[in-house]
């Protein structure tokens, strides 16, 4: 895996590769992408949307016949994962929006993924069928049953090639285990279990068992009046199958060891950065709420995203992060307006590159940011149709925070807060990134790649 930095010199040069999705201005709510995830090899890229659909893209094998395709992603499978449901008991409608997709490591020819909405997790099997049996004894080729008395000889059916068909079938449905809204699912490194987290509880499941799960964290107070903090994200450690973390709305992260106790209400490690008293405001708590937590591939670090920044934590140091990156500090003076228009509640995700040398997260105006951990350089890029000529290099963007606005800079007040990049994903091995901009999926590749 070639290193390469984020901006300038021996750095990434991000180029537009593809964009998927409708072009028209009127965006159907159901088409809004709500999750993006590469599989372990990077060959497959899954997206989930508000309409409950999952679309899987597969990377074309680079071939001499089509040298320009350069490993493009094309639709591989589309299926309806979740449907809207109505809970009659509580008179509540359950949204079909896909909150998260997580792939299972591939163990055979088929691919498996978990997809979840607010209440139900489903295990989907995606398999290919490119052969068909012909020559049945009891039915004709068109399916009509043959009269058994007319059959005089027996033959062995043969497998004949057919057009490739990709089938998605639900293999397991894990339901009725969450009272509150599921915000995270995470597959354990043992490849047998996974966890699911809602606002107040975390459950541990076995992939084969759907009728029960094990509650491992419960922060629901006996008296709901005492509730002041909720779980916002959770993830299993990439290598230690007994370790997981969960983040809270108060900007804290708790690391738990499942070997220590059956119920992990007591954490093993507690990560919290002391508050800077000089920057305290009415919104300090809201902006400290962690919207995403991700372990590094190495398992030594974890990254958290709060409203204005991304922080990298060393698992061995609980009292402060080792690195902090400002995503859009210019918004700090606008927090009151962002509170009023609800933008302050937007949940941005973050991701590592394959070598853990760079991190990426989204912002507003269809901007997304990348930070190089080694050189400490950062870059702001934009996902837009204007920059979507094939292999066009992306130009760094800059937000003008005050004073004279230079050419090509955009002022804070001109930012479009409806164009938010909440979901991004980085190929596990190569410099290919997928960025979800409302209903469009942008794929960018590194030119050097």
């Amino acid at each position, binding site marked *: 895996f070639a290193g390469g930095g984020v901006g300038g010199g021996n750095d990434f040069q991000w180029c537009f590769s593809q964009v998927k999705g409708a072009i028209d201005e009127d965006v159907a709510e159901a088409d809004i992408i709500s999750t993006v995830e590469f599989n372990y090899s990077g060959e497959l890229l899954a997206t989930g949307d508000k309409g409950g659909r999952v679309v899987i893209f597969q990377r074309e094998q680079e071939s001499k016949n089509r040298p320009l395709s350069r490993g493009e992603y094309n639709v591989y499978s589309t299926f309806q994962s979740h449907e809207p449901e109505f809970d009659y*008991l*509580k*008179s*509540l*409608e359950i949204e079909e929006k896909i909150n998260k997709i997580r792939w299972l490591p591939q163990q055979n020819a088929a691919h498996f993924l978990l997809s979840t909405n607010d209440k139900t997790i489903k295990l989907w099997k995606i398999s290919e069928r490119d052969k068909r049996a012909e020559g049945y004894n009891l039915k004709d080729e068109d399916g009509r049953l043959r009269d058994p008395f007319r059959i005089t000889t027996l033959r062995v059916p043969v497998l004949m090639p057919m057009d490739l068909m990709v089938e998605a079938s639900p293999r397991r449905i894990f339901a009725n285990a969450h*009272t*509150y*809204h599921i915000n995270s699912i995470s597959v354990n490194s043992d490849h047998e279990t996974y966890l699911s987290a809602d*606002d*107040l509880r975390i459950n541990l499941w076995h992939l084969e068992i759907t009728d029960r799960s094990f509650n491992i964290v*419960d*922060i*629901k*107070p*006996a*008296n*709901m*009046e*005492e*509730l*002041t*903090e*909720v779980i*916002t994200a959770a993830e299993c450690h990439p290598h230690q199958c007994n370790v997981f973390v969960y983040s*809270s*709305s*108060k900007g*804290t992260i*708790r690391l738990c060891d499942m070997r220590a106790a059956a119920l992990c*209400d*007591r*954490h093993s490690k*507690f990560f*919290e950065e*002391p*508050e800077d008293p000089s920057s305290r405001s*009415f*919104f300090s*708590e*809201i902006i400290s*709420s962690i919207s995403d937590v991700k372990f590094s591939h190495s398992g030594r670090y974890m990254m958290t995203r709060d409203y204005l920044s991304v922080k990298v934590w060393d698992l061995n140091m609980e009292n402060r992060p080792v690195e902090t990156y400002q995503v859009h500090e210019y918004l700090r003076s606008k927090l*009151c307006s962002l*509170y*009023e228009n*609800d933008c302050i*509640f937007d949940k941005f995700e973050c991701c590592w590159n394959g070598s853990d040398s760079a991190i990426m997260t989204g912002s507003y105006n269809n901007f997304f940011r990348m930070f190089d951990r080694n050189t400490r350089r950062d870059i702001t890029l934009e996902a837009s149709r204007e920059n979507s000529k094939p292999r066009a290099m992306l130009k760094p963007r800059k937000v003008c925070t005050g004073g004279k606005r230079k050419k090509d800079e955009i002022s804070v007040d001109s930012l479009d807060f409806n164009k938010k990049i909440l979901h991004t994903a980085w190929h596990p091995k190569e410099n290919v990134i997928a960025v979800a901009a409302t209903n469009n999926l942008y794929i960018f590749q590194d030119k050097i790649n």
Partner: protein
Amino acid sequence: MMVARGMKRKLYGSDNGGGSVWESQLQSVLDISLDKFQRDQALVEPSLLRSVLITNTLRQVQSVVKTHLSGVSFHPKLHTQPKKQPELLSTLGSIPAGHSASLCSLGVEDMEDDLMAWPSEEDLSLATAITGILNDLDAALDDDCGLSVPQRLPLASMENLPGDGRSKQNSTISHKTDGCRASILGNSSHMSNYLQEAVIDDLLLDIDTNVFEAEANSVSPCAFSFPADQLVKYLPPFSNSSAVSLTPASPPMVR
């Protein structure tokens, strides 16, 4: 920092949090939070994360206002501390006339009256309304709640309801406050739940700043008693256990 014409700027503005800018933000945050709170209440299933964040913000505002007001605590002996009053008043008084819901521009006598003249039996505290809603939310969502929590009275966190097994730890009545409050609660507990909810809605509507602006304009700048009176009425006793969670280094989440 905005200063009314003809008034001298005082040096003490920064001590009290930046004067009018801070106060105007405080008011904005309060207004916006209440609006969101009301809207979320109307939803069948509001997001728990959002509800908790908005509620915590409201509690923060409440705490700040309470701290601010308690810094101007009035006793009959107040006249022995003349220095403190003019400082605070001049800072607070620097808000130009017409400033919406100027919760701080008060005359001494008016403030005293406001604090002493505690709300009528119809007034309910903000925190109890909030906690009542959180409770209802929980009752709606959680089907494994062992205790049947039907319509929990919004006032419940302020009083020990007899027969309510969960309220033993809920005696959040601040014993420091004057006895007037206890009698209010006693009266209110007899109200039906429907009425209480209706009253909450009315009260929350009353916090609409348009009301304040109309009133403020009709009153002389030196005696903004009405707006403060309205706001103060909605402040609950600052004794709820949730206050603990306002500190930055919060203890592990309560079970």
